[in-house]
């Protein structure tokens, strides 16, 4: 039971990290795309 709980915690942590990384990179891209207009 404890191992199941820790596995759930680990998978939650991975998902949260992926989500945070996606959000941060998306905001960075928005800034870069705004500053570099297309040719």
């Amino acid at each position, binding site marked *: 039971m404890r191992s199941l709980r820790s596995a759930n915690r680990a998978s939650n942590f991975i*998902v*949260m990290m992926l989500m945070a990384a996606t959000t941060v990179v998306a905001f960075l891209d928005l800034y870069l795309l705004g500053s*570099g207009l297309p040719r």
Partner: protein
Amino acid sequence: MLRRDQSELKERAEPLRRTHPPIGAMTSGKRLGGGYRPLGPGRSALGPGRSALGPGRSALGPRGGSCRIGLIATLTTDAPNKSLDRTSAVESRLSQRRLAGAVGAIAFSGFFALWLGLRIGGTEPVRDFDDIATALAALAAALSCMRAAIRQHDRSRRFWSLLAMACGAWTFAEVVWAVYDIVLRVPVPVPSWADLGYLGAIPLAAAALLSHPAVRRARQARARASLDAVLLATALLFISWSFVLGPLWRHSDLGSLGCVVAIAYPFGDIVMLFLVVTVIRPVRVADRFGMWCVLAGIVAMAISDSTYTGLVEAGKYSSGDMVDVGWVVAYLCLALGAFGTGGTPAGRPARRPSQARQATGAPGVMPLSSTVASFVPILAALVSVAVEHALGRKLPPFDWALALALTLLALARQGLGLWDGWPGRPPATSRSPAASRSTAGSRSTAPSLSPFGKGPAEP
């Protein structure tokens, strides 16, 4: 249902156990294994032909008049064991089959790559071996999918049948290619009859994935699932456009049929990748192995197709190139997925939605692997935009518009995920009473803020 009956029988047998201890306990005066042991069929603690409630009566009531305690004991102990044994035996056989198939596929792929890498026997033997082995791998995939289709008796049968037809088209294309190479000894023209088979397989494979039962479930999902699909498709299109399709589009003569055929390969791969990733998310636990193998096969095929297109564009491709390993791996992955899929017995009733929901694991929660599979292309596309800017490259207008759309979609999706998991706001899957009942047990373990954490709603 069986478990409920067993617990009911146990409850009814409990007073009899208290008032009439087992023979072993009465004779030896000791409690053996908790004071209760099975007596075997046809035997009673009170002797043959006698019931604890008197002649002709049993703990099950008037309708179960001939039932004895021994039979109750048998039902409560032996039946679950037999059922569990049978289930574990089937699972064990399936695992052994999967392991044997995986070992065979890896061994053959390794042998093939080694032969091509070391150029054993010179250019012509390598080319002949390459053509024959690739055609045989495609044939193995077609036969394996056909076998899986025959063994299925539910809606998965259409999926495996269409995939078998797609593999048949690939086999036809590989045979035509081998005829050009080995029999006619001429370079394969572009376009050729082989392209008919290769490109004809793409709509068949797409139709197979669209007919998968998981897609039927996904179709009934809410707007968030649609937004996920659009985001995923945009990410895949951006990656492919940035690295393969865009350069090809800009540097090719679009008037020629050969160029259209060359572009059709990576484009078809995007469609198939998108469909596989969409299917694999809500897939049942029993079908997950097969779908992961299909995903691995499609990824290998996409990599090989894109590399092949680039090599052809540069005029550097010839039969027997290392890029051919990807196609053999792809066919063997498809064969393995079909080979390792368990059959469903004939005449089995259609699964009710609640049963289907249980089979996908915890209701409304996607497994980590499926979540990561959805995230990876999106994150890769977003990172590639930043890397392009860091390298000082200015994006062409179409690429820029695609990147902007991708970024806005990703942010909208994250915002929606955050809104759904906001404290005090009930999750989307628990707004209906039935859903709240079904998710009550798993609420504490579900990633509440996960953008892909909640699967599509069941009907």
